[in-house]
């Protein structure tokens, strides 16, 4: 219990650092920080409609976060998560296109989730095989595959899947309403997506904490040589971790298509994969901190969209704030180590006073 309080305290300190850094950036840009924060909060939590937008961002962030926990645990940097989201979306779109003429739309929607997981997992496995068989660093492989995935999406939108008549950046033809994930009328939120996230969180939590899979991933992440002597095959588990990460990311991409945009658009992944990397690091790889941290990032993401309109700030400022966030997160990540040392020292001096 005590460690959770400690984790939470660190999290709060991290957020404070993020605020300090972003405030500085805004002051330099000539923007009033407190007004900006006010509008970010108002823009994200100010109404049910806005809150539902936040949840729409929170769902893919949390799903990707769940998957990344598996790869981080085995010591892999799955930067390719972004491309895995995209391929999940592509596979889902491909499947739903067959469903346009069909009557069994519910079945198509159900299978579309599996198709998304498959797409993400295949994309992740490519990076995984490059790593285990070819010795290619998963960061470079993932980054490369992200570009390839983006290319495939653009090609599909402007090529084979283009709208009849005009091909445009607005994406493919919107699916008929029967192929939309059922939505809550008022919030336009998909309950299926919410349930999926909850299930994903519980499954990941249980797998990582109570099963051999979680233990084996941790062992290999800690020391692959020793894990091998303990009878584990590091390569296989790396692939397994990639399958989990890709599967969850693909699920996120799938829901972006069937539950949010109802078509394939160029920015279908909305950088949620990259953002999820930060979410997981900021959560200190603790699954129960992933949902709140993801929620915080989702609020910032949605809330800052308002800034150009309300404060007449240049629209690039929201990008700058997000960039500042990234830097602050990485900075805090480095300080975490330092805190641990200070904590150790505090403990020692505490004994001295006894």
């Amino acid at each position, binding site marked *: 219990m005590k460690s959770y309080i400690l984790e939470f305290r660190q999290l709060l300190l991290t957020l404070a650092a993020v605020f300090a850094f972003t405030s500085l950036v805004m002051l330099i840009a000539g923007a009033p920080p407190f007004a900006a924060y006010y509008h970010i909060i108002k823009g994200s939590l100010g109404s049910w409609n806005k809150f539902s937008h936040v949840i729409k961002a929170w769902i893919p962030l949390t799903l990707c976060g769940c998957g990344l926990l598996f790869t981080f645990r085995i010591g892999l940097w799955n930067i390719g998560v972004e491309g895995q989201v995209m391929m999940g979306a592509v596979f889902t779109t491909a499947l739903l296109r067959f469903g346009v003429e069909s009557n069994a739309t519910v079945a198509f929607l159900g299978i579309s989730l599996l198709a998304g997981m498959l797409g993400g997992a295949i994309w992740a496995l490519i990076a995984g095989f490059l790593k285990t068989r070819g010795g290619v660093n998963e960061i470079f492989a993932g980054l490369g595959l992200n570009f390839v995935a983006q290319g495939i999406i653009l090609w599909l939108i402007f090529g084979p899947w283009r709208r009849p008549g005009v091909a445009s950046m607005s994406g493919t033809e919107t699916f008929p309403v029967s192929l939309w994930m059922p939505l809550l009328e008022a919030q336009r939120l998909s309950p299926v997506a919410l349930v999926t996230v909850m299930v994903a969180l519980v499954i990941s939590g249980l797998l990582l904490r109570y099963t051999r899979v979680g233990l084996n991933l941790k062992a290999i992440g800690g*020391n692959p040589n*020793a894990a091998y002597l303990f009878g584990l095959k590091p390569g296989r588990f790396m692939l397994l971790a990639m399958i989990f990460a890709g599967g969850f990311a693909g699920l996120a991409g799938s829901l972006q298509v069937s539950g949010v945009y109802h078509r394939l658009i160029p920015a279908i992944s909305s950088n949620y994969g990259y953002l999820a990397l930060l979410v997981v690091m900021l959560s200190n790889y603790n699954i129960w901190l992933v949902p709140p941290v993801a929620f915080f990032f989702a609020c910032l993401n949605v809330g800052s969209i308002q800034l150009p309109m309300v404060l007449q700030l240049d629209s690039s400022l929201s990008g700058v704030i997000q960039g500042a966030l990234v830097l602050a997160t990485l900075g805090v990540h480095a300080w975490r180590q330092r805190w641990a040392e200070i904590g150790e020292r505090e403990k020692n001096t505490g004994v001295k006073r006894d």
Partner: protein
Amino acid sequence: MWIELQDIHKHYGSVKANNGVNLKIAPGRIHGILGENGAGKSTLMKILAGFSQKTQGSILIDGQGVNYRDPAHAAELGIGMLYQDPLDFQLLSVLDNFMLGQTRGVSQHKKAFRKQFIELAGSFNFALHPDTPLKILTIGERQQLELLRLLALGIQALILDEPTTGISSTQKNTLFDSLKKLAAAGKSVILVSHKLEDVEALCDEVTVLRQGQVTGDMVQPFDSNRLLQMMFGAPPVPPGRSAATPGSDVLVMRSVSGSGGRTGLKNCDVVIRQGEIVGLAGLEGSGQGVFLRVAGGLQPVSVGSIQLAGHTMDNRDHHSFKRRGVTFMPASRLEEGLITGMSITEHFALQQNHNRFMVKWQEARNLAAARIANFRIKGTPDSPVDALSGGNQQRLLLSFLPANPVLLLLENPTRGLDVESVIWVWQHLQAYCRRMTSIVFSSSELDEILMVADRVLVFFNGRIIKDVESARTDVHELGMAIAGKV
């Protein structure tokens, strides 16, 4: 340089690793710190070297109170430490490691350092080449490198933590000669050891620690029995060789060659029988390590064939060997044996049936608690393994050995353990042999090999140049063979 430690306390939570230690180190002398594993020697020395912070107490250098926070500061004051596991960089060359911490500014003056290195290495008769990549060096050679690096930094007081573990006796002699030279030049040398014979051979003065406290001091000439009493209370009894008669063939190697290490393994013909304890002797890195790894399927055989209890095992991986009852225990504990960041309980959970889906945490925790008690490990089921002392990590590795293995391959199994623990470990291992397990182990201690092994294989330059029953040989003959003279 005079060093004085006054009333040093170091507490890890409720564990008191040092509990009011007083110590005075004089210049120009070799001062031994003697004690069994976990007596608090390493802790005390890490405090002196600035590696960890004392809970209480003061350090005086030449009568002046000093307070430093890190090893770099300690080095500026002239105190340097040679750790049990040398702190160096595997990916760099010998010269690069030597230069670390010495270079200032932008330019590196590599030529000057090379010259300095060669001169320094030559003056101590260390056979180190500056361009060798560090990862192929033995522990003994890495230690020599570290020693040279510390001297080049201008160290006045040198602390050596168990320097003779894992090095050959030739390397040990070289090391002792250089330490004597250093003391003669007025430097303070502090030798931390649990080996009585090392301390007796080298030191002018000894301080004995037991359970975090000083139990006595002694100057030359030493009285071994009294020193042992200070260390343990009562002197231990060494085990004899096992009386079991060897059974059928377990491991058969037919003209096996393999690569790896510095020398590789060349044309090796060996038969290991059931219930036999075979000791591998030789200079560190003469092929013993490769032999053990090839025998365990951890390194491929380039030529020749291996049979395990009648099954041909060529080109099989370690897991196939493991399924046939072969267990390999590596010498480098934190690099290969244990998983940093995981607790003792998690290590036992890892050894549960691999086909099970759920981890039985309670079962693992109970097993961990039982083995901790049984193997006298100082720690709790939740201790992370990297927080254990070297000796305790070694005990933990031994506690992982399965109940009924066919063949145990142990790389320096008693490295870093004190006399009492070594004896205890071998009593434990001999019980395996009575159940017809074969044990093959390497050791840099000829005494240990002669004490417990039924047979000795002497390695020289990647070849087995002597294969003899230990009852029919002696230290002198083996020593000659180790040096390549048969």
